C-alpha cells in the first residue's frame, strides 16, 4: 500500500486503470486532459473460509480471485468481462448476474485501504463480516468510479459455492416461474422467454429442474451478454432483457445518462468536493453518467 500511496502522490491528476474492460463507463466525453495512469496492487493476501472473507489487492483480476476462492469452496459477488479487476468491478459497482443467491455488490466490500486526494492513506470499514462502527464509507466507494478515493487493497465478503446449479430456459410467464422457485439466483426475461439460474443442494436443484421441466423448460448454457450490449436500471426496452428482481435491463446499443434530482446531484457534488475538491482523482469520470 505504501508504494501505491507514493504513486498516487498529492499533486496532479491521476487515475487507476484496471483491466480496461469498462473503461468508458461514466466517462465525460468533453474531458480532455493528461491524466497520469497507475495500477493498483496485485495479489491475494489471504483466504479465510471460516471467516468468509478474502484480503486482496484491487488490481487482481476477478477471474484469478474466483479461481483461488473456488479451491476453498468459496466465491464472491463480483463478476465482469474477461480481464476485469476486483477494483474495477467495485468501482463500476454493478450487481452480479447471480444476484439472487450471491447478494448485491454493495454488501461485498467490508474494508477498503485507500489513498485520498490529499495523498493520505486511510481505511474505510472494518475486517469483520458485521460492522456498524462509524460512517459507512465502503458503500460510498462501491460504484464511485474512483472519484472519491483510490482503492488499493480490500477485504471482501465471500460465500460458500453452491453444491449444484443449473441454467434453464422456457416460455412460462415469469409470475409462474417466481412462484415455482425458492430464491432463484437469476431470472432473465426478454418478453417471451425466461432464462433461469437455480442453485442449492443437489437434491433441491434436481427437484426444481423437474418442476421447471413440467413448465416446459429445458437445460441452457449460461447466457452471455452479446457484443455491443449495455445494461441499465429501468423498464424493459424493445429487444432488451430484464433481470427480474434486480432492476437491471440488458439491451443492445449504448445507454443514456440517467435522470437525477437536483437535490441528489447537489449532495453528490458536496461529497466530491469534500473528498476531492481539486478533482485530482479520475477527473474524466462522473458516476452520474453511468447506469447501474
Amino acid at each position: 500500500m505504501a508504494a501505491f500511496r507514493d504513486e498516487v502522490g498529492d499533486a496532479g491528476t491521476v487515475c487507476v486503470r484496471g483491466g480496461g474492460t469498462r473503461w468508458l463507463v461514466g466517462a465525460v466525453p468533453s474531458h480532455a486532459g493528461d491524466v497520469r495512469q497507475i495500477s493498483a496492487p496485485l495479489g491475494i493476501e489471504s483466504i479465510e473460509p471460516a471467516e468468509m472473507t478474502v484480503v486482496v489487492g484491487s488490481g487482481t483480476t476477478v477471474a484469478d480471485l474466483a479461481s483461488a476462492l473456488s479451491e476453498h469452496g468459496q466465491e464472491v459477488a463480483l463478476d465482469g468481462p474477461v480481464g476485469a479487476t476486483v477494483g474495477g468491478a467495485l468501482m463500476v459497482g454493478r450487481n452480479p448476474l447471480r444476484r439472487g443467491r450471491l447478494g448485491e455488490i454493495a454488501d461485498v466490500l467490508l474494508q477498503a485501504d485507500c489513498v485520498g486526494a490529499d495523498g493520505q492513506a486511510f481505511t474505510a470499514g472494518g475486517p469483520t463480516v458485521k460492522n456498524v462502527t462509524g460512517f459507512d464509507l465502503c458503500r460510498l466507494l462501491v460504484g464511485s468510479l474512483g472519484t472519491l478515493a483510490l482503492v488499493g487493497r480490500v477485504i471482501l465478503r465471500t460465500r460458500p459455492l453452491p453444491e449444484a446449479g443449473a441454467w434453464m430456459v422456457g416460455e412460462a410467464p415469469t409470475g409462474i416461474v417466481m412462484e415455482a422457485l425458492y430464491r432463484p439466483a437469476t431470472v432473465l426475461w426478454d418478453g417471451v422467454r425466461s432464462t433461469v439460474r437455480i442453485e442449492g443442494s443437489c437434491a433441491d436443484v434436481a427437484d426444481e429442474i423437474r418442476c421447471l421441466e413440467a413448465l416446459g423448460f429445458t437445460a441452457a448454457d449460461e447466457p452471455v451478454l452479446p457484443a455491443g450490449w449495455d445494461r441499465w436500471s429501468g423498464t424493459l426496452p424493445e429487444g432488451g432483457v430484464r433481470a427480474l428482481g434486480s432492476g437491471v435491463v440488458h439491451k443492445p446499443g449504448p445507454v443514456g445518462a440517467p435522470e437525477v434530482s437536483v437535490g441528489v446531484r447537489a449532495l453528490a457534488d458536496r461529497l466530491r468536493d469534500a473528498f476531492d475538491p481539486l478533482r485530482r482523482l479520475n477527473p474524466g469520470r462522473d458516476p452520474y453518467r453511468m447506469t447501474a
Partner: protein
Amino acid sequence: MVISPLTRSLLGRLAVRRVDPITDPLERDLVEVLGRGRVEAGIGAQSLYSHDGSVTRGGRAGIVCFPESTAEVAACVSVSVSHGRPFVPRGAGTGLSGGAVPCDEPVMVVTTRMDVIHEVDVERRLAWVGPGVVNLDLSRHLEGTGLHFAPDPSSQQACTIGGNVATNSGGPHCLLYGVTSAHVLAVEVVLPDGEVVILGAEEGRAAGYDLRGAFVGGEGTLGIATRICVRLTEDPPEVATLLLDFDRVAGAADTVSAVIAAGIVPAALEIMDQRVIEAVEPFAHAGYPLDAAAVLIVELDGLPAGVATAIDRIEVIGTAHGARTVRVAADEDERTRIWKGRKSAFGAIAVIKPDYYLNDTVIPRTRLTEVLSRVYEVIEERDLIVMNVFHAGDGNLHPLIVFDAREPGVMERVLEAGEEIVRISVEAGGVLSGEHGIGLEKKRFMSMQFSPADLEAQDRLRRAFDVEGLANPAKVLPSGASCGHVTSLGRAPDGTWV
C-alpha cells in the same frame, strides 16, 4: 344577554390564560408548523426524551416535536436550523448506544406518529413504510403474503423501522440475510438543510454514488428518514431449529467456526452461556440443560433437502466438538420456546442483579474461543459477573455485565471491564460495534480502531450531508463538542432488549 364590563374583563383574562402566549420564538415557530398538540416543551417531555434504551446520559431534550408527514419533518428541521438549534431524530428510543440521547437541548423530532404502511407490492417484493412503523408490525401485516421483513433485532416488538435504518440494526437472522442496509432499497430523507431527497431506487442500484448505503446507519446525523422502501424476503419453505449443548463454552464456539468453514451458512447461530441458561430456563421452559456450560441455537432454512443435509452435517460437526446432545425442534411450539428463551434473555437477568451494562463488539469468528476466555478473565479479575448471549455466527459478542449500582466502587470496575473488552476485541482484529452503533457511548473508543486520517474521511461524508453540523451533533465521531458520559450508569429502563 348583556355582559357587564367586569365580566368582559374577567372573560378576557381567562381567554388569555387558556392559551398561554409562547415566549420562546423557536417554540412559537414549531407550534405554527405542527399546532400546539404536537409540540411539547414541558419538563415532563424533556425528561422523558432525555434518555433512550442505553445507560448513557447526556444533556437534556429541548422542545419535543411529533410530526406526521414528510413536509412537517422538513418544516421542523428548517425551523430548528433557522434558529441555529441542533435537532435529534428519534424513533421508539430503544437504541443501546445513546444515539438518541440529546445534548444541549436540541429539538427532538420524534417520528413514531409516522406509522403508516403506505404500500405493499407483493409481486415486486417491496413495501413503502413510515419511519414510525414498528419492526414486528410490518412482518405481522405481511402474514399470508409469504413474505417478511428480514431484520429482526430482539427489540423488534418495540423498535421502529426508522430507528433500524438509523442504526443499521441487526438481529439473529442477519447471519444469512444481512443487516438492515441489505433490506433498504430506497429512502426518502429530509436532509439537514431541509431539502427532501430520495436516495436509492425501488429496483436496482440508483445512478451515481450509493447515497442510500451511506445514509443507512448514519445514527441520525445525516438527516431524517421519512419514508422507507424495504425489501421483502420470501418465507423459507422449510425451517429447522437445533439446540446443541456443551460442557465447555469453547466447544460451542469452535462448532460455530467449523460450521461456517464447512460451507454451511445457517440463518442464525446463537450462543448462550450457563448464567443465561439458568436465568431464562425457569420461565422459557425451552429445555435448555441447566448443567450445560453453553448452548448453541442453530436455525437452518431453505428447501427441504438442503436443510436435511445441513442438519446431519451440523450434528456431526457439533458432536466432534463435544456437543452432548443435538436436539432438533420437533414442532413449531418447541421452536418458539427455544427462541423465546433467546429473545427474552435480557428480561430475565433482573433475577441476578438489578443493573446491567451491555457491550456489543465483533471479532473474527475463528477467535471466539480465545476472546471469550479473555472476557471471562477480565470479569473475574474485577470481581464482576458477566452473562454471554450473542450472535456467534457473525462473531458479534454481547457481554452483559450485571451488577448492583448501590455497591460502592462497582461502577468504576464495570466501566473498566467494558473498556477492556472493547480493547481485546479490537486487538483480536475486531470492531467496536456490530449492531448497536457508536452514538455517545463508544465515540471515545473510535481512535482504538481508526487513525486520524480514517476519522477525517468519515467526517467528510458527514459534512457533505450536514454542512451546518446541526443534525444530532456530538455523536459517532470523537471530534467536536463533548457531551454525554457513561460514568453515571443507571438502571436500564424497563423493556430493554438486545
